[in-house]
């Protein structure tokens, strides 16, 4: 792979006494969607949180566009152009939708063309622009969470299970928005449990098991090879 936007080299991360990541090697290509797959508890969320600096990797290197960000504070990583959408959405419930979006635009006022694009992707956000984010439905909160990352152009998007627990109609909206983001040439590392969404969006895929990447390659290859899916993910499930 030539000149990836993000590279993880032998990353180990512990949370308290638990050894969650045990030597993750991962490359995220530019202008492509990389799916991070695997069953629950294998370290996908910890991988994203290690990249953004919430959990510190105690061994290994995390390199963003040639810059070592392993020891850089989280806000500096974010300002270096990494947009993070956490699994729990992490919206600011007491602030309005507008205030949530304004806060997310750290480099200055929101670009109106970009905001129009976000509204096109997530129309309810325009409707509830002045409403408190805490009053939104679950799906709308997830839209806001992704919209906050999309409100500015980022070098890399880290998105953790954006369709988790959402109604099918909202899942379609999410998938459409992510497809548009991808069409703009964004580099995305996406954790997703919904395999049909993963298959539709992913260019490349990495499968994790027990805190390591156990397979990486073209998403197409994984999507069309049932025995490979069975071996990588089915075997893991049986093992646990």
């Amino acid at each position, binding site marked *: 792979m030539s000149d990836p936007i993000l590279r993880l080299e032998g990353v180990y991360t512990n949370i308290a006494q638990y050894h969650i990541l045990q030597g993750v090697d991962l490359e995220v290509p530019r202008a492509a969607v990389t799916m991070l797959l695997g069953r629950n508890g294998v370290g996908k969320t910890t991988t994203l949180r290690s990249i*953004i600096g*919430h959990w510190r990797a105690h061994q290994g290197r995390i390199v963003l566009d040639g810059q070592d960000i392993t020891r850089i*504070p*989280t*806000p500096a990583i*974010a*300002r270096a152009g990494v947009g*993070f959408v*956490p699994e729990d959405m*992490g919206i*600011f*419930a*007491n*602030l309005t939708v507008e*205030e949530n979006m*304004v*806060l*997310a635009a*750290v480099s200055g006022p929101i670009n109106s063309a970009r905001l129009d694009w976000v509204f096109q992707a997530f129309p309810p956000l325009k409707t509830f622009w002045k409403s408190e984010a805490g009053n939104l439905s679950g799906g709308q909160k997830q839209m806001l969470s992704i919209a*906050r990352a999309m409100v500015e152009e980022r070098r890399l998007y880290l998105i953790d299970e954006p369709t988790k627990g959402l109604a099918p109609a909202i899942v379609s909206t999410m998938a459409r928005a992510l497809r548009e983001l991808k069409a703009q040439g964004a580099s995305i590392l996406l954790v997703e449990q919904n395999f049909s969404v993963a298959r539709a969006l992913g260019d490349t895929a990495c499968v994790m098991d027990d805190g390591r990447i156990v397979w990486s390659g073209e998403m197409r290859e994984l999507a069309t090879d049932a025995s490979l899916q069975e071996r990588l993910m089915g075997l893991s499930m049986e093992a646990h």
Partner: protein
Amino acid sequence: MIKAVLSGDMPRSSVLALVLGLILVCLALAPFLFPGVRTVDTAARICVFIVLVASYDLLLGYGGIVSFAHTMFFGIGAYGVALALTHMGRGFDAILVGAAAGALLAAVLAFVIGLFSLRVRAIFFAMITLAVASAVAVLVSQLSGLTGGEDGLTFKTPRALGPAFKFGDELFGVKLNGKLLSYYVVFIGSLVLFLLMLRVVNSPFGRVLQAIRENDFRAEAIGYRVVYYRVAATCLSAAVAALAGSLYAIWLRYVGPDTTLSMEIMIDILLMVVIGGMGTMYGAVIGATLLVLAQNYLQNLMGVAGSLVEGVPVLPQLLDADRWLLWLGVLFILSVYFFPTGVVGRLRRG
């Protein structure tokens, strides 16, 4: 116009707007509506405590930071003015120097405490502020040569702010003297500081602070350095508390550990924030007004009520004026039970 003055933060409840308007009018015209030493003193105390509680709300309600050193900052401002007026003479320049020095010292002290303790968990900040506040209170008592120790300092304010200064005969039966001017210095100073706090919490800085209170990791992941914002909020809050202390010293012409540094005042501030409603700013107005009025008049009110029910079994004993603190406690429990989000939160919900 009103929206701009209130930084776009409207009361969002007609009842609340009415109550706030009533409090504003009563405080603005207190010397004329309620002439008398005690009533005007109560009004001045309400003004000062509104600012003090608003500055604490910036920390607790907007920043989610628990501090026990707020009275220390309040005291630093009060002692700043007292020492300046004692050593520089009774001029307005001494007031300005004392207030500025007090605010600066409070901000620097808050910066040092914040930088060392806000990096770690918020509980350490609360513990450290408690320790530092206790140490400063002891220091003030011990340095009696400078601070007057337990007796405090009595000092003279500029002549124009003293009762002997007359600038007219009477207006609506009220003597136009320096004490009246002194009240309006406190009132206008408090109003300006309160509006400043309202501006701060409705600025981008205030929004980031609220975001940090709700989810500090998420705020960091967006790109905001949580420690910087928390330390800045602590410094600003400390400086405003010190300025409130300066206004209090100008009004009382006396400072002492009991009036500015005691833990009782710290508890009062906490009660006022909780009763009024955390993270609302207007809660400071409601909380301070209710509690200061209760502290000053509940005892009298109970004395009257007790005499009205004389001859009825049990009630006169229950309503004995000496039991006012018990009823204040009951009122607090009831207010927390019925208004868990404070009076302002309840009124805004409708």
